[in-house]
């Protein structure tokens, strides 16, 4: 990630240490993960110790300190999805991709994550593939959904 882009994001938030989380969120969404050089740059510009940045980036779920796969698969495991069989859906996703929840494969093809609830409870179980929502999913449909995501 180039320094100019990082600085641009930092400046958007007036280089304010109180906006640390907002800056990290913007970098995460721009770059899909948080590379070390970005964290160092933030630490220097905002005058915030690296220990605090590490604390924050490991405390909040959104942040990733490793690169993510080209395809991001989020399986909702909220209560409504759980009682409608989300666990079986997750297993089907793990089998189809060969990637366990919370992990990314070495070729950076897929990242599989579980989410506490994405607020589409009426459609459960829900799987979000690259931002596209699939509702009322059965385990047998997973292979079809991932067909063109290779």
């Amino acid at each position, binding site marked *: 990630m180039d320094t100019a882009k990082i600085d641009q994001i930092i400046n958007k938030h007036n280089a304010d240490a109180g906006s640390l989380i907002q800056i990290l969120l913007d970098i995460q969404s721009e770059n899909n993960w948080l590379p070390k050089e970005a964290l160092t740059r933030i630490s220097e510009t905002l005058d915030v110790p690296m220990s605090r940045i590490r604390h924050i980036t490991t405390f909040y*779920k*959104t942040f990733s300190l490793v690169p993510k796969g080209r395809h991001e698969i989020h399986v909702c495991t909220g209560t*409504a999805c759980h*009682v*409608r069989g989300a666990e079986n859906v997750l297993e089907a996703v793990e*089998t189809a991709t060969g990637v366990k929840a919370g992990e990314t494969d070495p070729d950076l093809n897929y990242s599989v994550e579980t989410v506490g*609830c994405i*607020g589409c409870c009426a459609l459960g179980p829900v799987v979000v593939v690259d931002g596209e*929502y699939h509702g009322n999913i059965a385990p047998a449909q997973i292979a079809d959904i991932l067909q063109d995501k290779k």
Partner: protein
Amino acid sequence: MPRINSCAELEVLRKDILSQRDPDKPCITLCSGSACHATGSGKVAAAIEQEITTQGVASEVTFRRTGCHGFCEQGPIVVIYPEGTCYLKVKPEDIAEIITQTIKEQKIVERLLYVDPNTGEKATVEADIPFYKNQERLVLGPNRKIDPKSLDDFLAVGGYQALSKALFEMTPEQVVGEVKNAKLRGRGGAGFPSGLKWEFARNAPGDKKYVVVNCDEGDPGAYMDRSLMEGNPYSVIEGLMIGAYAIGANEGYFYVRQEYPLAVQNLEIAIKKAEEHGLLGQNILGSGFDFTVKVHRGAGAFICGEETALLKSLEGMPGEPNSRPPFPAIKGLWGKPTNINNVETWSNIPLIINQGAEAFSAIGTEGSKGTKIFSLVGKVNNTGLVEVAMGVTLRDIIYKIGGGVPGGKKFKAVQTGGPSGGCIPEDHLDIKVDFDELTQAGAMMGSGGMIVMDEDTCLVDLARYFLGFLSDESCGKCNPCREGIRQMLKILTDITNGLGKEGDIELLLELAETTKGTSLCALGKTAPNPVLSTLNHFKAEYEAHIKEQRCPALSCKKLIAFHIDPDKCKACGACVKKCAPQAIEGGKKRIHVIDQEKCTKCGSCLAACPKAFGAVRKISGEPLPSPIPEESRSIG
């Protein structure tokens, strides 16, 4: 954009907007909330815009993309005014017909109407659909009439009337008094009286004070705050401003989960437009009251729904809670007096100011006034957002509004209050839903998630599920919460895996008691509730797991097996095709047999087996019949 400098100018603008709107002119509204978006409302919107041009009706019809209507299961939803004709599960290819028939000819497209699954009757307008008919939509109501991005729409439904009344006709003390008299209780979980909270913050010494909207809706299974934030952001802003005026704050924060991108987007648009019109900023409406707001996105931590953790997060720190007192009303954001309420609470404020405390408190029960929005989800026919007067029975919500349990299954329990709440069994369904009755029944109102479960849901597994969630989300600051939850989770996991031991139940109870009594914040204090309430009502289910290695709901994977009955199997191959791990041995005219070693117990075979055959069944707590020998597998 013209700045609005006084309440007189506000009323002139409102009149102007209304005079340009012909109430008899057809208006197509399309629900564009997150759930409808997920079912394709974006494509439907494009089709509507296209068809309006193609069929040349641009001057005769208005098109509006609104917030969430609540009947999410049936989305995308299209409602055509002034008649209110309601079409469900609309697809892009339906639009041409809707325009030709309904807009041009005033005819109904029958196949898109709601059909009551019990009576087979069709309903043309929302008000005739049982899901809507039995609700009281005071807070959620405007969602379906307005475009959340349009300030004009908000003004057209009476927006900012309450703010102008508060600023010009009431003193801050009177506003606090009105909220106290309305007996509004916080909709975020604990149900603390909002007026009292406001009074504490107002009376707290200090020249700088803050107001905060808690939209860190983390309870899995609840999404009413999301819908309000996405569908009617101006009303939340209005409520917040009234609160700021009442306690003497000039700065406010919205704390919104970043998992809710549409909520953040619509809110930012609303703030920008309000600023352009002088409805945020200096000297609002010429009253001398200044107010600015900022949006802060949460980065994914359930604990940040707890107010002290939320404030830490707002300051750019990890969201770890502090012990209270001091309460945020005395020492909150940056150490200053701060008032935090959740989205739904703030949305009730304009209502209270507009209609008065007396009218507001006429609805509800003795201890809980007004309405509450629930997200009715899980094993129920009509899932979606439901707003009812406090005091309605659970049975009415689940059966009259929700239409009961689908697929002829038997109702087992309803879980309310999210991970901090509890399960309520069938024989308690007649309790009246309010803060106190739910707590008495061993559950809680929480933020309003209401998850219906049928006979297929294992409640030991549900307790394990919640504890797993909480163990993941515990911030780890205090010992009892971090370790207590982890130990309870370990025992529950063992039980659901068939490794339960004598004495596990007693140990669970002891751990629950300690965690409840000694944790620092509400997350830990309420974490044992899922265990306690399921043990209270469904102890036999725990015992079956521990003593007989049997899951009565046939749900715990380690305790069940799938079996194909050789007498019923017609060798149709349906299950073989659906079996992802290829665990079924099949073949033409050969009885299918499941290889138990390969089976992942996903249930696809059970779903695939034609109802007429019913050859696949789940087994628990009994020996598995040995597979039929190779030589006897041929049929016909």
